[in-house]
């Protein structure tokens, strides 16, 4: 609290400078949007050359503005309206920092910071790009930044002051005070906004009227990076929901979740179709369209979350002015790009020739399944609004619909994946691919049948999931193995390009996640009871005893903490401490589930209320393979990283490096 007053003068200065930097960045962005674009049309080199320094300056200014806002949160400068509404002096430092983006204004500033970061990265690392293309890409990227700078400055300014600063703030929502969630939005935004780079490349290529293999090679690293960030961001959010919301759900098909899942699906499709552009010069116009749509869905995601349109009943961000503004941004960018696409797409002549059975066709199938899957999610998410507007029906579309309507596409994708991945480019023979995968297929089938027999009488979801996971994983191994040549030269596997390893690892990750989701849903055990102190009870082969319940005080909360002894047979496995917390400032209760994380299963314990007879409500879940869901997601991200580090991208990106010190610590 003292910091707020003693450092008040300096703090106030920094905040004003941050506000000023933000306005300057807006100006620079306008220049960078116009000058290089005109230069590229007129072939004026000096005008085109403006883009590179402008992108750097724009990023540094925005980074300064963002740092100033972080500083205001760290020093608890309650003269800022935003800090007062979302922070508290007694909050732990990590959450003071993450509080910067734990609100609308701050999160939009983070959004635009990442837009400018990607622009600067393209300016610094895009040494190998032709000057005109580079100028256009940076101009389009800057146009996106201009739109969001305007949005922030005119509707969501984080630097607004309070005339009379209060003594202390109103605290961040306690549910958000969590390490998993502190880093969830930055990753998600890096993903969303990373797709803006693919969008800028697509629009620049349309203006230029030229798409070739080199274009595919330039656009793919950005798409890969965006997809990796989205994967990690979604996994973090889902993991957070799993341990924090108190019943161990990990995916709810909520509109805001779908908002991040749709760009992920399209980014996955895009990074596959860009391979075809790069290697075979086919699927060009489709890839351009995907790049536009993928970023379009990122904007739709931002719109859904920020406007509160889909949550009309209890909207938090229910501010029509902001919603309309984002809708205009969405309309201008996707509408404009699609119009440009309609006018220019015919010029993208396909070159590559391939037969019906080929890697190219398999990747077309991949794109069909991912894109239609995305469409189903999109349609389901918007259907309640459409039904109300056009048919006057008020209805809900929830998890049961998505599970039924979306899952078949992923099952089909999983079934086709190993076959498609092993087919050669140009022309292949299905019989040969099937023959190569025979062991993988029968091993996966045998495993599934074994489990089917063992589980006796439960749903088929577990065995089916196991089959898919095993089939994809073994398929990836066979694919790698087939590269050793006839002699079975193992050393050759290790020397394969990293892109091949990335493919195998990412596909395995998908298999692991698919299996884990099916396994968790099929084999979960749940127990709800009133537990009396010291009286053991059995759940799924474990013995649990509620030993004691205590009142504990945390830094900014009070807690009711139970001690549950978890035993298997006579052996004590763990002591679990489920908590119920109350945050006095925001007067909000949260649950902190206690989880014994193990390789094959989690034991998940939640404590509820004290009953009249002195017992406590205790909910216990045995969650098999829960960790595998996120381990699989991490494998996917790791596969993406391996692929990103492949030599051909490093070569394509050019040897030029960013000057040391060019990237600030933020």
């Amino acid at each position: 609290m003292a910091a707020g007053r003693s450092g008040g003068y300096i703090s106030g200065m920094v905040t004003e400078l941050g506000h000023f930097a933000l306005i300057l960045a807006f100006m620079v962005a306008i220049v960078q949007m116009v000058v290089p674009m005109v230069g590229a049309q007129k072939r004026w080199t000096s005008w085109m050359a403006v883009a590179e320094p402008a992108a750097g300056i724009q990023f540094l200014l925005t980074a300064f503005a963002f740092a100033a806002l972080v500083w205001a949160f760290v020093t608890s400068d309650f003269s800022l309206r935003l800090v007062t509404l979302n922070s508290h002096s007694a909050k732990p430092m990590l959450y003071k920092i993450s509080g910067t983006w734990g609100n609308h204004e701050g999160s939009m500033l983070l959004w635009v910071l990442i837009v400018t970061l990607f622009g600067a990265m393209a300016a610094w690392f895009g040494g190998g790009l032709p000057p005109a293309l580079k100028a256009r890409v940076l101009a389009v990227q800057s146009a996106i930044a201009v739109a969001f700078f305007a949005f922030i400055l005119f509707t969501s300014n984080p630097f607004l002051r309070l005339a009379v600063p209060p003594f202390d703030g109103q605290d961040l929502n306690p549910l958000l005070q969590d390490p998993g969630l502190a880093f969830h939005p930055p990753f998600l935004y890096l993903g969303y906004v990373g797709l803006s780079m693919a969008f800028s490349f697509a629009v620049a290529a349309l203006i230029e009227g030229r798409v070739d293999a080199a274009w595919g090679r330039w656009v793919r690293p950005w798409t890969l990076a965006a997809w990796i960030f989205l994967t990690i961001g979604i996994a973090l959010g889902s993991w957070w929901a799993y341990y924090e919301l108190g019943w161990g759900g990990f995916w709810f098909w909520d509109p805001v979740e779908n908002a991040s899942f749709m760009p992920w699906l399209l980014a996955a499709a895009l990074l596959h179709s860009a391979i075809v552009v790069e290697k075979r010069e086919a699927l060009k116009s489709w890839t351009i369209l995907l790049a536009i749509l993928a970023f379009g869905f990122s904007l739709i995601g931002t719109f859904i979350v920020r406007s509160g349109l889909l949550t009309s009943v209890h909207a938090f961000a229910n501010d029509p002015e902001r919603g309309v503004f984002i809708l205009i941004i969405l309309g201008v960018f996707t509408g404009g790009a699609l119009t440009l696409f309609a006018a220019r797409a015919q010029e993208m002549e396909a070159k590559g020739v391939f037969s019906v059975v080929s890697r190219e066709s398999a990747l077309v199938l991949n794109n069909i399944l991912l894109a239609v899957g995305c469409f189903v999610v999109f349609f389901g998410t918007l259907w309640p609004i459409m039904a109300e507007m056009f048919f006057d029906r008020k209805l809900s579309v929830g998890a049961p619909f998505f599970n039924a309507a979306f899952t078949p596409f992923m099952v089909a994708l999983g079934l086709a994946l190993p076959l498609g991945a092993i087919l050669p480019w140009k022309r292949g023979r299905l019989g040969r691919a099937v023959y190569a995968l025979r062991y993988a297929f029968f091993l996966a089938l045998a495993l599934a049948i074994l489990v089917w027999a063992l589980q006796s009488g439960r749903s088929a979801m577990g065995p089916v999931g196991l089959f898919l996971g095993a089939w994809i994983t073994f398929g990836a191994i066979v694919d790698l193995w087939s590269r050793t040549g006839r002699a079975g030269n193992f050393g050759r596997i290790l020397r394969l390009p990293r892109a091949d390893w990335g493919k195998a690892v990412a596909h395995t990750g998908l298999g692991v996640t698919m299996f884990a989701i099916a396994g968790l849903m099929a084999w979960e055990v749940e127990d709800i009871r009133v537990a009396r102190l010291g009286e053991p009870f059995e759940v799924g082969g474990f013995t649990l005893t509620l030993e004691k319940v205590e009142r504990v005080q945390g830094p900014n909360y009070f807690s009711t903490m139970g001690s549950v002894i978890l035993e298997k047979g006579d052996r004590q496995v763990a002591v679990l401490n489920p908590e119920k917390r109350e945050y006095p400032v925001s007067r909000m209760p949260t649950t902190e589930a206690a989880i014994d994380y193990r390789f094959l299963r989690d034991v998940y314990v939640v404590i509820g209320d004290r009953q009249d007879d002195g017992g406590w409500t205790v909910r216990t879940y045995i969650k098999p393979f829960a960790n595998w869901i996120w381990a699989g997601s991490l494998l996917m991200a790791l596969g993406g990283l391996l692929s990103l580090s492949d030599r051909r991208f490093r070569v394509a990106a050019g040897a030029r490096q960013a000057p040391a010190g060019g990237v600030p610590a933020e």
Partner: protein
Amino acid sequence: MKRLILILIVSLLATPLWAVQPDEVLADPVLEQRARDLSKGLRCLVCRNESIDESNAELARDLRLLLRERLVAGDSDTQAIDYIVDRYGEYVLLKPTTTGANWLLWLAGPLMLLVAAGMGWAFVRGRSVAAAPAEEVLSAEEQERLRRILEE
């Protein structure tokens, strides 16, 4: 930020209550299992995209108890669901029915798949047929050149 809204709503409504309380659980495990399965498909009306099975809200508890009452009274699954839909409207169903305009929702995916598969097939066929000659047939002059290159 994607959960911010959910969180706020959940937390606004989060009384220190719990989804499915021990005192709600029916003595008959078969009946209880049916109740659990059905409540996963029913929406908590004051929550955001939560089923009454997951929700902590008071109203969700009332619905859970009502559903169990109907089942104990001997209703079939459909009867119990119809009873609740009659009172709360189809908004309560998390899985939309296939009646009226909803067929659009259910068929959107399969129809789009047909369209996409048709377009994909046409494209792949086009690629495999169209360019085949360009790749395989060399003019006499080219063949002569190729022969010379190979000989060198």
